[in-house]
């Protein structure tokens, strides 16, 4: 294809768009491939994969990525053979398809980085594709000669097709050009074209942007009707198209049969029918636009500012003396409502189904299952659950790790399972659901559960817990999150690369979420991730400590109460606990941890906020009073300053002042450290 004559800026822009599209197409491809692997012979998936490869090929051709085009071509040829039913989707083909998808994706990556792939890059996979292409077409010895460029499976005899192609008026507006289509048709065989001028309007009514011409074409070719339909694949919802086989040559029944049997092939083999309707698989992309994430981020930020400004205004109005105007009150309420709604709308723009992450997992389970020789099935639920795009990106790593772990360590091998009276095939369940402003993600396996004795022994051996310490079963399970911990008895190919569940926990905590584990020996293990839907806002409880105000994340708060004198116990050695419903909960004074003076020191005078930490344990935070809950826009401290232990971020209150968001997970650690280093930090001076 000739290089488009655009300026370099435009070209770069087109290229960027192309790679963005590639990312989407690859995600779709991956997902469809997963479906294919799971259910086999799913024609719909085959078609989708074919379309993805084909679209990338078309774009790659335009930008001159010849290696990519070459590979895509071979990939496409095999897919085409499969969807036409001319090749069988057996285990070997599936494995090759998965491998081809990898090479394909790697080639796209290389092209994106502007690097030339090595000559033999993916050669083995390409050879395998060619072998499959050759192997499954023993009818044609000639096919071997054309080998890699084997376009479509050439049926035996040449046929004559009558093709009527009438573009809708808006064809050009979607950047389609009939000339290219006709040229491509010509490559299939001998083509005669008659132009139909009947729809040409008078000169006055002529609109240069509209398509008026139609064509009636006769094609002598040895291709299938599907191959012709494919030429029109990208315009089939923008034209009337009839592909009719002229009854000049008899068709062998075994050639037409697979085409008829393939329900998703848009053109029925012989029946002449106009193709006016869009194929179902295309509907998803029709009503969406592509927007630079940066613009959305700016919008989110601006709306965040608006929320703060609105809160400030409302507060100033409430505090002002002449605040008894009912109309103004109403106005402020209306404004507050609108602002909240606007914020929700804007946040919703960035929401995406977790499907994009989930769809990578079947593949992973298959791969790891293969490597470890285990028979594992993945069940997924709630793929449509939506979460902020920034969160989704951060989910991939922890999920990958947990699922890999589940297959590698969680699920037993078939013999052990059978001996334990379980089916040989292990099951991993991955599910997502909304819970308030959080998303809950469960990763569950029906494996052996944790071997608590071994966990404890290992923790002692690694010095994570002192020997002789009495731990409950749940506490032992929690050890899995300890840094440097790996449960694998032997380091395997799949895991044991020094990355453990502590990394998962760190990733999840970085997202403002938490991870819990429940394990039932012999029955399986269940990890639960609780993750906020968005990283931009947080439902917080504003608490007062001395002169300072802090925000506690509402999701962690169980309740708050003022303890009675009898509920407080001092533990020798300095600890303080509160007894609530028979449970003893450790108390931490926010004022002491943060060095705030003039705060209430006696919990019985102030309040205890009962918190649940990520590991499921509870903590009582002593504060002066609760000032109310509100949604806060999270601002980063790190933009301009170093991370502050115990503080996860900041927000701006209605009065314009900055309030700090407390990182409750860090509090205990911070408390212990402060206790050790005594009072080196400067106490916070009272400020009015």
């Amino acid at each position, binding site marked *: 294809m000739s290089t488009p004559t655009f300026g370099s800026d435009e070209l770069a822009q087109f290229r960027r768009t192309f790679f963005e599209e590639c990312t989407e197409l690859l995600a779709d491809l991956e997902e469809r491939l997963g479906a294919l692997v799971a259910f086999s012979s799913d024609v719909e998936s085959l078609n989708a994969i074919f379309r993805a490869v084909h679209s990338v090929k078309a774009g790659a051709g335009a930008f001159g990525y010849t290696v990519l085009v070459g590979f895509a071509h071979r990939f496409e040829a095999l897919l085409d053979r499969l969807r036409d039913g001319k090749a069988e989707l057996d285990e070997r083909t599936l494995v090759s398809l998965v491998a081809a998808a990898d090479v394909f994706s790697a080639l796209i990556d290389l092209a994106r980085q502007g690097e030339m792939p090595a000559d033999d890059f993916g050669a083995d996979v390409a050879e395998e594709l060619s072998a499959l292409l050759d192997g499954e077409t023993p009818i044609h010895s000639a096919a071997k000669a054309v080998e890699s460029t084997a376009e479509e499976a050439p049926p035996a005899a040449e046929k004559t097709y009558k093709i009527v192609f009438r573009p809708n008026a808006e064809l050009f507006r979607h950047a389609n050009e009939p000339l290219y289509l006709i040229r491509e048709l010509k490559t299939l065989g001998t083509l005669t074209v008659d132009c139909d001028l009947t729809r040409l309007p008078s000169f006055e009514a002529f609109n240069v942007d509209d398509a008026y011409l139609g064509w009636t074409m006769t094609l002598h070719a040895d291709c299938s009707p599907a191959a012709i339909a494919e030429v029109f694949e990208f315009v089939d919802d923008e034209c009337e198209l009839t592909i009719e086989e002229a009854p000049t040559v008899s068709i062998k029944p075994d050639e037409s049969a697979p085409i008829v049997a393939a329900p998703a092939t848009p053109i029925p083999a012989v029946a002449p029918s106009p193709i006016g309707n869009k194929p179902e698989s295309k509907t998803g992309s029709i009503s969406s636009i592509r927007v630079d994430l940066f613009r959305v981020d700016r919008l989110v930020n601006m709306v965040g500012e608006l929320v703060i400004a609105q809160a400030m205004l409302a507060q100033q109005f409430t505090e002002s003396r002449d605040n008894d105007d009912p109309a103004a009150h109403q106005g402020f309420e209306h404004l507050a409502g609108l602002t909240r709604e606007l914020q929700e709308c804007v946040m919703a723009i960035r929401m995406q189904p977790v499907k994009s992450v989930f769809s990578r997992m079947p593949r992973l389970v298959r791969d790891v299952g293969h490597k470890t020789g285990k028979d594992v099935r993945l069940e997924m639920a709630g793929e449509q659950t939506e979460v902020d795009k920034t969160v989704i990106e951060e989910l991939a790593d922890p999920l990958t790790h947990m699922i890999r772990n589940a297959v590698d360590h969680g699920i037993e091998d078939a013999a052990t399972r059978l001996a334990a009276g379980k089916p040989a095939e292990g099951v991993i369940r991955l599910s997502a659901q909304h819970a308030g402003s959080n998303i809950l993600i469960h990763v569950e396996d029906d494996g052996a559960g944790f071997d608590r004795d071994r966990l404890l022994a290992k923790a002692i051996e690694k010095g994570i817990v002192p020997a002789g310490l009495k731990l409950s079963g749940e506490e032992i399970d929690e050890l899995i999150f300890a840094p440097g911990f790996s449960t694998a008895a032997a380091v395997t190919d799949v895991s044991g690369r020094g990355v453990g569940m502590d990394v998962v926990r760190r990733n999840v905590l970085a997202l403002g979420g938490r991870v819990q584990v429940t394990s039932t020996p012999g029955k399986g293990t269940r990890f639960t991730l609780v993750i906020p839907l968005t990283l931009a806002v947080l439902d917080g409880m504003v608490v007062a400590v001395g002169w300072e105000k802090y925000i506690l994340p509402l999701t962690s708060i169980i309740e708050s109460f003022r303890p009675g004198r009898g509920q407080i116990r001092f533990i020798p050695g300095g600890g303080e606990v509160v007894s609530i419903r028979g449970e003893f909960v450790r108390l931490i004074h926010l004022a002491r941890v943060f*060095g705030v003076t003039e705060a209430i020191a006696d919990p019985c005078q102030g309040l205890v906020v009962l918190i649940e930490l990520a590991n499921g344990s509870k903590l009582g935070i002593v504060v002066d009073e609760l000032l109310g809950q509100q949604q806060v826009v999270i601002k980063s401290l790190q933009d301009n*300053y170093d991370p502050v232990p115990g503080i996860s971020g900041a927000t701006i209150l209605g009065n314009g002042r*900055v309030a*700090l968001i407390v990182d409750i997970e860090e509090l205990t650690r911070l408390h212990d450290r402060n206790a050790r280093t005594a009072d080196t930090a400067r106490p916070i001076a009272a400020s009015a």
Partner: protein
Amino acid sequence: MAEPQDLSSTGLDATTAQTRQFVSFRVGDDEFAIDIMAVREIKGWTETTVLPNQQDYMLGVLNLRGTIVPIFDLRCRFRLGLTTTTSSHVVIIVAIGGRLLGLLVDAVSDILTINVADIRPVPDVDQPIDNAFLAGIIPVGDSMVVLLSLENLFANHGPANDAVAA
């Protein structure tokens, strides 16, 4: 204060190759200056939100139109004790290495246009201010202005460094 030697009447002449402009300010009885190119804005002192367990010269953060900006007490950074802040104190917002931060000073004095050749190296003297903080000395009339190195002042608050040295 003393008049700078070269008072350029036109802004154009002021930024030719040989001259640079500095904002000078007062901390205690001493006059300091920083490169004007680093200065983003100058505002009056407002109460900050104190960050827990920080160095004493770190006064906390304030809200600069939606951005959280840390504020440092220069006097305290020079180990001359904490500033007792009043509403007449001034915060100079500067950009260093892609970060915004505020410097609490007693008062902003002037904008100096200095011939680069006039900037003298810092002599090795015994003083409370760490020599690394100083980029040079500018003679202004009979007096002198100490040119600060913003990079060195807050070098330990770099993006990858959370250890706080005194």
